[in-house]
């Protein structure tokens, strides 16, 4: 039964380090700094463990846990993203009195949940991982205890997310009932389009997953939670759970639901189009940059789902490429937001950026690059992300989806341009505080350099991603 336990070594190591970090946090006072450093170290080491492990497909625990190149890639992506987010948000956390040792520990727990979710080859393990992740995220959203907004967002997230988990669980039980197994491979063999009950189950599971990745029409929680949570938490929300959710969605489409592609394809096409359009239109009126990023992330998930909607390997890999570039852009964007500080206070109002290009040329240039990249303007990285998605979409003859998607990029370009307009064209009212923080600045620099130089070798990511799907 415990054959192949070695494929769990990264997870086991991560779990053990979580326990030991909790101990350190309990017995040493004021240990935020120490715990964060150790946390970064153990995340780094976990990434190393995954990186150095074999890349062949292996299963453990009665085939309920799977490790293959796909899971390894997603895990490393999540780890690297989390390391950057944690690293660049340290200053924000300390200055906002949320520097508790629980913070990095909960993030690690969320990551552990994601790992199990991604590697799950069984509905039960999938659900357990998902819940571990979600519970950690609820706590994270409300971690700023004395801030009413943070509490509100935590509660809101919890209530809505619990509802979606319920739907998901209902779908899982239906799936078990109609296929007789909880194992993905068995379900995949049992499922066909005549099995109406299982198709119902698929719809419920899809709803639950769409909620987790905040795709329209299950996106309502996103703007409030993004705005209410502390920025450091928002930056984590915008990145890691999205990657994990999308990865699981692709796994579901690829393994258990691979025989009912015609049934789910329509649904994915619809939520993809809805997300792209809503993300583009609703962001226009936003005044708060975190809220704007929430809508922007909804839109971006729409594009990633367009790749999933093709139901082909090329579509899935384009989605993974898309989400990877999205991660790079969002890490850069949130690092820039960490530098928005006026009179010693952090601000998230877009109007506070007005005219800062005169006083902060480098920060403004970073904003410019990242925003144009988010808008998908060549030659920046964001363009290639969209390009691959639409290559896959058009390859499968889904012209309507491609045209709607590309037209909504024009709409979304408008609100990205609006921020650039505020930064570059408006008059300077009051400059931001000079913040010299090596962690943040190096993160921004790295993200901008990746986005600018992406066009030199644009197939770099594709080569890796093509390899993980074999």
């Amino acid at each position, binding site marked *: 039964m415990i054959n192949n336990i070695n494929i769990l070594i990264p997870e086991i190591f991560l779990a053990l380090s979580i326990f030991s970090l909790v101990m350190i946090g309990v017995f040493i006072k004021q240990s935020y700094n120490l715990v964060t450093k150790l946390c970064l170290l153990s995340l780094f080491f976990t990434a190393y463990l995954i990186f150095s492990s074999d890349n062949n497909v292996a299963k453990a625990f009665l085939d309920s846990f799977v490790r293959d190149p796909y899971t390894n890639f997603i895990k490393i992506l999540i780890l690297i993203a989390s390391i950057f987010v944690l690293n660049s948000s340290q200053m924000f956390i300390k200055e906002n009195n949320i520097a508790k040792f629980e913070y990095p520990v909960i993030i690690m727990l969320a990551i552990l949940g994601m790992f199990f979710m991604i590697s799950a080859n069984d509905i039960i393990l999938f659900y357990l991982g998902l819940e571990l992740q979600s519970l950690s995220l609820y706590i994270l959203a409300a971690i700023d205890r004395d801030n009413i907004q943070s509490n509100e967002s935590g509660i809101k997230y919890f209530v809505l997310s619990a509802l979606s988990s319920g739907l998901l669980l209902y779908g899982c039980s239906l799936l078990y009932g109609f296929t007789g197994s909880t194992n993905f491979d068995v379900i995949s063999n049992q499922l066909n389009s005549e099995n109406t009950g299982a198709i119902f189950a698929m719809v419920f599971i899809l709803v639950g997953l769409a909620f987790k990745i905040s795709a329209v029409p299950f996106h309502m929680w996103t703007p409030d939670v993004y705005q209410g949570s502390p920025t450091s938490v928002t930056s984590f929300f915008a990145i890691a759970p999205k990657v994990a959710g999308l990865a699981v969605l692709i796994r579901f489409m690829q393994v258990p639901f691979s025989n009912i592609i015609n049934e789910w394809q329509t649904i994915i096409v619809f939520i993809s189009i809805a997300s792209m359009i809503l993300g583009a239109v609703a962001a226009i009126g936003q005044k708060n940059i975190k809220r704007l990023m929430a809508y922007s992330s909804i839109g971006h998930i729409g594009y990633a789902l367009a790749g999933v909607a093709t139901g082909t390997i090329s579509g899935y890999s384009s989605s993974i490429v898309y989400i990877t570039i999205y991660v790079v852009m969002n890490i850069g964007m949130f690092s820039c937001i960490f530098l928005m500080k006026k009179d010693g206070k952090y601000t998230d109002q877009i109007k506070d950026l007005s005219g800062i290009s005169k006083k902060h040329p480098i920060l403004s240039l970073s904003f410019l690059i990242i925003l144009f990249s988010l808008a998908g303007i060549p*030659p920046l990285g964001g363009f290639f992300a969209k390009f691959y998605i639409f*290559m896959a979409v058009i390859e499968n003859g889904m012209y309507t989806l491609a045209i709607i998607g590309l*037209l909504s990029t024009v709409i979304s*370009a408008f609100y990205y341009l609006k921020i650039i307009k505020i930064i570059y064209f408006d008059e300077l009212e009051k400059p931001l505080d000079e913040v010299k923080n090596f962690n943040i600045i190096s993160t921004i620099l790295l993200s901008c350099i990746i986005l600018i130089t992406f066009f030199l070798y644009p197939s770099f990511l594709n080569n890796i991603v093509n390899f993980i799907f074999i």
Partner: protein
Amino acid sequence: MNFPILSSIIFLPLLGSLFIFLSKSKNNQSVISISLFTSVANFFLCLFLWYSFDRNFVGFQFIEESDWISGLIKFKLGIDGISILFIVLTSFIIPICIISCVNSIKERLNEFLIAILILETFMIGVFCSLDLVVFYLFFEAGLIPMFLIIGVWGGPNRVYSAFKFFLYTLLGSVLMLVAIIAIFWITGTTDVTQIYEIKIPKEFQYLLWLAFFSSFAVKMPMWPVHTWLPDAHVEAPTAGSVILAAILLKMAGYGFLRFSIPMFPVASEYFVPLIYILSITAIIYTSLVALMQDDMKKLIAYSSVAHMGYVTLGIFTFTKQGLEGGIFQMISHGLISAALFLCVGVIYDRLHSRKISTYGGLVNYMPRYSLIFIIFVLAGLGLPGTSGFLGEFLVLVGAFQRNYLVAILASIGVVLGAAYMLWLAKRVIFGETINPEIKKLRDVNFSEGFILFLLAFVTILFGFYPQPLIDTMSVSVNHLINNYQVDLIHHLTIQK
């Protein structure tokens, strides 16, 4: 030829801008010298390219190819007799813009120069690329610096104009992106030279042509999607207007020549009436609109739309004269409109007004300026002896071979063009001096005089001696027409 001359021409300005960015020099003089040095060096490289260009060679020369997107798409560059002219034009206009900045840009000069140099990279890239995706990359990337040039250094209504410019162009282009990807899946390649040989099936051509057309029509700009142009021109700083009029608009005409016509011959033939109607409307309607303008930049902007009408008309006659006329008109419009915007810039820098009614009687106080201005006004209305004449003339010759009615209507535009141009000169240069401030104006200084004289010299040179241009493009144009006719016959025989 092993030396990658096209890549060097494309990336040299980028290198220059990087140098300015890293040097962080606050000294305007040194920043200008760096950028001027880069762009002039690039111009000489382009002249060398033109010199070593084999004008009797059919097809593309100086081809550079390297693997780009994992075996699917190659980063392919190459030029023929048509693109070389636009490359030389671009590299000629950019140093002029940089010199003109000395007088007109007062703040954040080094950022402005960085934007201009990056823009030069993208523009030359457009004219060099032989792959649809590479072309799209450069075509769209040019939006970013231009958006900033209009928005940061523009006039009072700059935000509206910058947004309009960006969104209009982007909206047109995304459909082109769909078409490019569709072509990739239809033919299996985005390499232009291969697509020429593969021959896209007829049933796809119409939609693909329309998708490309939506992008080029906005960029050209053709009536009725031209409305962004007057706004953008009015608000952009002088150098921005010059680049916009001289080069950015030419990308669309070039796009028709390079992509629409050779790749979709059947659709091109099918949509000729559409192009004629839009071109004629542009020529007559925008000329009438130009007559009524009180803003000099707006007037020139509308005249640009009219002139571009001749270009599309000429290109879609598919005759040797028409095509050569269209290309010649693009080059000459590049020179003349650039010069006219510079002329407006000269007096705008002094009085900060673009209104025609502010001026009058300049001839008494700025004689040298008035002389140059009159030369360009005459060139703009197509006086024989200037390059403006030859383009329009050849286009009309081409049009007469296809359709009398169209040619006659287009000829009306020539008269209207003369009307608004001469009236502009009359109101600005001659007449009574009502505004007392005009008496205090000083005449053009050395740098202004130098660039305007240079442009005037080239305009008149090509007016009397157009042979270098015609010789360079002739073989490529013949090749284009031959291929076009062969393709048409090929598709017709398949039909039968």
